């Protein structure tokens, strides 16, 4: 078996025993060791591959909470406020006002004239929080249905033809998610999945919003390479047999560049069926496609006002959010999963949902301890110190939504939870101090797949308007880099295989142009690409 020796400008290993190295030796996709050339020469004859001689290597980055649908979304027109790079490496400039959104959609329409036009990423918060109306989108077309999903995923705007196609352009509509104009007709804004999903079908959105087909998966793989990611999650999948086959097939393609860790969400099956299916999927997992994990969705989102909050509730007085699971079903799933060593991740946004989780886990684990269950509380945005301490005691991990500080931090401060709780949201400092394993995430496509950006967000807690929101919850650069490698690996229970550059682990590297430990701003660190399982993937050559 050929041994390849990669010299590099610097290797940041994330192995505390040997934090830095100059060379890494790889055989058959596995790391033989990281150290000096002299140290590694004992392994025998080596082929020296000097392509990374002026690069900095890090362990391949791990995105602990994202969705493969980000890949599929790029077939639709991006209209977001921030610059965003597509799978082919084209950076789409942010649409800074509504006119730019209209122009972008017109260009999209010109590529496929006459076909219903779906757009995504719209964020009118940044347009002075003005409402987008059907009159605005009618400027794109007065005859072709046009629909644009907001960045938050909680609102969709339609033009007049799209409203007509969806049967919504009529008087007498009485639905809280369909605001009406002075003329008694819908303004074109639709809020919430129960109105967006059926209407979205008329403008080219799949009814299963989280679904991803094979081309979408391949596009997602390219996004991973560009972001330095070698392992990514598909954190809420239905995983029917067809989807499982697609996942297994595409990830087995010889040049597929990312290991995918999939979680089966709890909807649509009874707890008993869920457990049985996930046990079966665990047995069918491969190195590149890890299944056999459960995602439980407990509540909604904070910016959608559907997360479950404890007192004093929402800052703007909105009623409390929604439960998406009964406490009884939660208890059954956790009890059965712990007993079978099936790992559970929970979507738990609001602090009341966190509290229910803590109390349920306490009951179950007091009765029957589960060694190393590592239940991971995803988002966990509003947990306070006391809750995080209890989670630490229960053996849980947290994966915090650090990107929220930047994208919606100002809105949380002003509107959703108010200044005090906004400043302690996503309490990474506190969680680390309490001994919790901390991951940080993008929830792509909600925010872009870019762990270095996410690390920057946790390190600085800067909002889009430039305020530091909750300076006391900032973490250090080193802690942030740990979170996007070993921290994430630990939350997925794959830290013995990936997450650091050391002997015996997978040869997964992020190949960087700059040194992430010393760069002024992590967002500016250039990414050459990745090595995944010993296979180099250059972003520029995709």
């Amino acid at each position: 078996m050929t041994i390849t020796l990669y010299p590099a400008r610097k290797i940041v290993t994330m192995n505390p025993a040997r934090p830095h190295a100059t060379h890494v030796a790889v055989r058959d996709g596995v790391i033989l060791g990281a150290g000096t050339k002299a140290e590694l020469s004992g392994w025998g004859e080596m082929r020296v591959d000097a392509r990374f001689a002026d690069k900095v290597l890090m362990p391949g980055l791990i995105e602990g909470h994202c969705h493969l649908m980000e890949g599929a979304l790029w077939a639709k027109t991006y209209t977001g406020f921030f610059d965003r790079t597509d799978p082919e490496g084209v950076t789409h400039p942010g649409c800074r006002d509504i006119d730019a959104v209209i122009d972008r959609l017109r260009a999209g329409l010109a590529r496929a004239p006459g076909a219903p036009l779906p757009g995504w990423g719209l964020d009118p918060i940044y347009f002075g929080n003005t409402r987008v109306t059907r009159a605005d989108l009618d400027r794109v077309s007065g005859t072709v249905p046009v629909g644009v999903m907001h960045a938050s995923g909680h609102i969709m705007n339609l033009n007049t033809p799209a409203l007509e196609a969806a049967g919504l352009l009529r008087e007498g509509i009485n639905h809280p998610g369909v605001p009406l104009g002075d003329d008694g007709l819908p303004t074109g804004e639709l809020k919430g999945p129960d109105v967006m999903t059926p209407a979205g079908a008329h403008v080219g959105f799949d009814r299963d919003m989280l679904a991803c087909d094979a081309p979408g998966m391949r596009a997602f793989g390219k996004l991973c390479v560009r972001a330095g990611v070698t392992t990514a999650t598909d954190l809420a999948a239905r995983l029917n047999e067809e989807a499982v086959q697609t996942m297994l097939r595409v990830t087995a393609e010889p040049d597929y560049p990312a290991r995918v860790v999939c979680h089966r969400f709890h909807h649509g099956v009874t707890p008993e069926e869920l457990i049985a299916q996930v046990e079966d999927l665990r047995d069918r997992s491969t190195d590149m496609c890890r299944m056999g994990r459960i995602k439980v969705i407990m509540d909604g989102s904070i910016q959608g006002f559907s997360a479950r909050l404890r007192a004093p509730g929402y800052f703007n007085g909105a009623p409390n959010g929604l439960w998406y699971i009964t406490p009884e079903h939660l208890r059954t799933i956790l009890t059965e999963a712990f007993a079978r060593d099936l790992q559970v991740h929970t979507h738990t946004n609001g602090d009341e949902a966190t509290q229910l989780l803590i109390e349920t886990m306490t009951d179950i684990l007091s009765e029957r301890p589960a060694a190393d269950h590592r239940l991971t509380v995803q988002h966990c945005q509003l947990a306070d110190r006391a809750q995080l301490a209890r989670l630490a005691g229960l053996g849980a991990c947290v994966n915090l939504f650090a990107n929220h500080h930047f994208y919606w931090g100002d809105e949380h401060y002003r509107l959703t939870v108010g200044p005090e709780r906004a400043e302690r949201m996503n309490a990474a400092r506190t969680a680390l101090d309490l001994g919790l394993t901390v991951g940080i995430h993008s929830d792509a496509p909600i925010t872009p797949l870019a762990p270095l950006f996410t690390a920057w967000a946790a390190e600085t807690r800067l909002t889009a308007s430039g305020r530091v929101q909750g300076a006391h919850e900032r973490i250090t650069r080193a802690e942030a880099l740990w979170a996007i490698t070993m921290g994430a690996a630990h939350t997925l229970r794959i830290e013995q295989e990936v997450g650091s550059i050391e002997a015996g682990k997978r040869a997964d590297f992020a190949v960087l142009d700059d040194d992430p430990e010393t760069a002024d701003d992590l967002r500016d660190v250039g990414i050459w690409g990745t090595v995944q399982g010993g296979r180099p993937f250059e972003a520029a050559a995709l």
Partner: protein
Amino acid sequence: MTAPLPLTILGGYLGAGKTRLVNRLLRDAGGRRIAVLVNDFGDLAVDADLIEAEGDDLIALAGGCVCCSYGDDLTTAIATLRALPAPPDVLLLEASGVAMPGAIGAAAGLMPGVTLAGIAVLADATRLPALLADRYLADTIERQVQAADLLLVTKSDLTDPAPTEAALARAAPGVPVAPVDAATPALVLARHAARPRPETRHAARHLTRLLPADAPTDPDALARDLAADPRVTRAKGCLIDLSGHPRLLQLVGTDYEITAAPPGAALGVVTISVPI
């Protein structure tokens, strides 16, 4: 364009008895082709002897009824049902335990080919007072029962239903309450507007009850019983008298009158009473 299909939503918390009621309604369908909509087949155990044939997302049931799983896509499921060779007469949607029946009703109002008939919410007499006091679930249960136009109390054979009725009167004042035994297909699947109901909302803490009137009844005897009950303050509704004629009963305090019922009136008497 065919007439829109009436949709009744059956709500209530986990274990309230929704599945049991659905099975009974299917058994007593009496020629109505009922389409039962469930989020997923995992949510509903249709009695095995009712099943005639099973497909991926459609189960054919005895008497021309069907059971359909809609997943996240109610619109498509309803379009599929409407396109069947023998489309259903009515839709009965079983909401999951923490679902908001009012929100489902509002969404149904946006769907082409559907008209919301009503929302019946089941209340488990053994659990409802505790659920309404539960720190995590109270507001969810309140929102569920407040969305109802008919509340059906289940499991009264296991415990005294009075605390549940009183709790419902506080949480959802003015919504008629009936025992689940009274929940015939005619009552549950009737359009809300055609159901007997109180004419005005009454003060909180008054009990609003729906007395079924399926069998011929002596209206004078019933009225006398109601007048003699010191808790009953008002009653109004239609029933069939012993000679088979529809009669309208109206009672305020101890005064009552019985007259010919208006044509087409739904059967059943709504009473308003002070709690025990």
